């Protein structure tokens, strides 16, 4: 006679278990489906770019509208764009984050400020470009220039820094502030000596994300200052390191990629892939810093 196990799963339980494992694997498949093709494409991108990727490709200026030569001018243009926009946005964004988390009273005005930050983050990049044209290029008379493009990028990336700062400050325990106040420190002294030093990694993460956004964006600089090619003197090393003035148009890596991919006939394939590979390499490099920073932050958290 067959002995029955009283704890054996019933048919209903078996069916449930089957469904569950199907669902689990299906969802795992979805997560994989997201990641694997994209990384395969990126791998192909780097593979096809490998023939041109060399030091001289980075260091030489584009010749013949980018069909030959390297990408030095767009690369240094992106660098200047990032630096100028960061100088503009970092103080405003960090102070705004401090205001929202430390000073703002809990009322309708603060709700509107928070809503404005979310709305600003959601405004399409091309609308930011139109705003840049209306405000900076025309009304403030900057013309199409590095400055106008950097201002446009700065306005667009304010939410990135505000959100990161706000979250970093909110993570500092209230007890830290209370202890400091009890020592007789004013609100600003507390923020300067206790809150900011304890949240600096989180704020830096926001700064890194801003840099990566600024380096990758194309639409906002389309009409505000990016140029397909510029005529600059390249006689000395000084010219090479500082080819642009703030009131002149400039080349940027992202716009250069658009130009070499779509605008110019007879473009060698590897020049397109090379530009794309350098841009994506740069962005992933910048972003890996934010991940390292977060791991570091978690390891030395004092509370």
């Amino acid at each position, binding site marked *: 006679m067959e002995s029955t196990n009283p704890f054996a799963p019933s048919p209903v339980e078996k069916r449930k278990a089957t469904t569950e494992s199907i*669902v689990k694997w299906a969802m795992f498949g*979805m997560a994989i489906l*997201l990641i694997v093709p994209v990384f395969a494409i990126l791998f192909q991108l780097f593979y096809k770019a490998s023939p041109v990727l060399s030091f001289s490709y980075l260091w030489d200026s584009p010749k013949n509208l980018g069909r030959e030569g390297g990408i030095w001018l767009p690369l240094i243009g992106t660098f200047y764009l990032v630096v100028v926009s960061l100088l503009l946005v970092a103080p405003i964004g960090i*102070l705004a984050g401090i205001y929202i988390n430390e000073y703002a009273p809990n009322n309708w005005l603060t709700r509107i400020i928070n809503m404005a930050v979310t709305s600003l983050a959601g405004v399409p990049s*091309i609308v930011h470009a139109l705003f840049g044209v209306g405000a900076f290029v025309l009304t403030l008379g900057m013309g199409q220039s590095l400055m106008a493009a950097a201002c446009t990028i700065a306005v667009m990336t304010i939410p990135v820094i505000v959100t990161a700062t706000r979250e970093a400050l909110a993570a500092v325990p209230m007890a830290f502030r209370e202890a400091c106040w009890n020592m007789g420190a004013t609100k600003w002294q507390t923020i300067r000596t206790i809150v900011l030093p304890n949240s600096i990694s989180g704020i830096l993460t926001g700064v890194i994300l801003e840099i990566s956004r600024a380096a990758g964006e194309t639409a906002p600089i*389309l009409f505000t200052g990016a140029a397909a090619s510029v005529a600059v003197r390249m006689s000395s090393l000084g010219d090479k390191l500082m080819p642009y003035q703030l009131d002149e148009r400039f080349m940027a890596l992202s716009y250069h990629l*658009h130009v070499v991919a779509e605008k110019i006939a007879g473009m060698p394939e590897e020049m397109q892939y090379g530009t794309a590979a350098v841009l994506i390499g740069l962005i992933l490099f910048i972003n890996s810093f934010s991940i390292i920073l977060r791991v570091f932050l978690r390891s030395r958290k004092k509370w």
Partner: protein
Amino acid sequence: MFSRIQARLGALLDKFEKPIQWLITLCGWSSIIFVVAIFFFIFKEAAPVFPHLNWGEFFFSHRWIPVPAEGNEPVYGAMGIMYGTFAITVVSMFIAMPLGLGAAVYISEFATPKLKETLKILIEFLAAIPSIIWGFIGLVIMGPIIQNVFGIEVGVNLLNASIVVGLMAVPLIVSISEDSLRAVPDSYREASLALGASKWEMIYRVLFPAAKNGLLAACMLGVGRAVGETMAVWMASGGTDNMPTNYFDPMLLLERVKALTATIAGEIPETVHGSEHYQVLFVIGIVLLMISVVINVVSDLIIKGIHTDKNA
């Protein structure tokens, strides 16, 4: 030496507590100032065309002929372009929503802590890829694949743009859905499992209803992302506006489309500042701005819940 400078600087900063507070407050309000400025400047550039733009034609005609042949009047019918944006949004969401929600559920409920961390980092990298790279992928890598698979002449079309935009919107959907799933208290999960539910039953009977606001907001923000995407759509969609007669014809996927964002990006450089065409493109900008602000404000309200002043 350094610490003395630091102390001096600190003392100096403390003397100016009041002005510093004013500066901080001003910066705090900056987001409101910039949102108002964006509305102001875009309306300012578009305003001259308001009185004589044929609004009926703008919204309900699909004849977009801004630069007509000699002797003809230009026609600004944006319906075909709005259809393009709408079609890309809908098709891309068919790709992004299941993938995004599935991946979010997997990361939040099934993955082991190590795998979870890895997947989150990878998806963060995915979010960091700039839109011009996606456009390049659509144009140079996906285009030829679509040409070969379907045996058609041109690989940039609705399908291509939708896949690219869908993949771009996924990281946003994943991270917000994951946040809202994590916000569901563990006691809900434990109660449900203790009553004999399988993990999947727990997910769709308990977690989904409990997190539905967050999931809805995630999908809405995905839609906002798709509507506002510029470079990828411009490079991968083909850029011809057409109005289909049968909306459910699957062959439409292989048609080229033109989106609102791509129209602005492509045509502003060809216009003269202050011309009618230029102003009409700013009107399209207003349409995009309105859509994005409405989507963001509504999803923000959904996430945080509409606080009625019970305590006040």
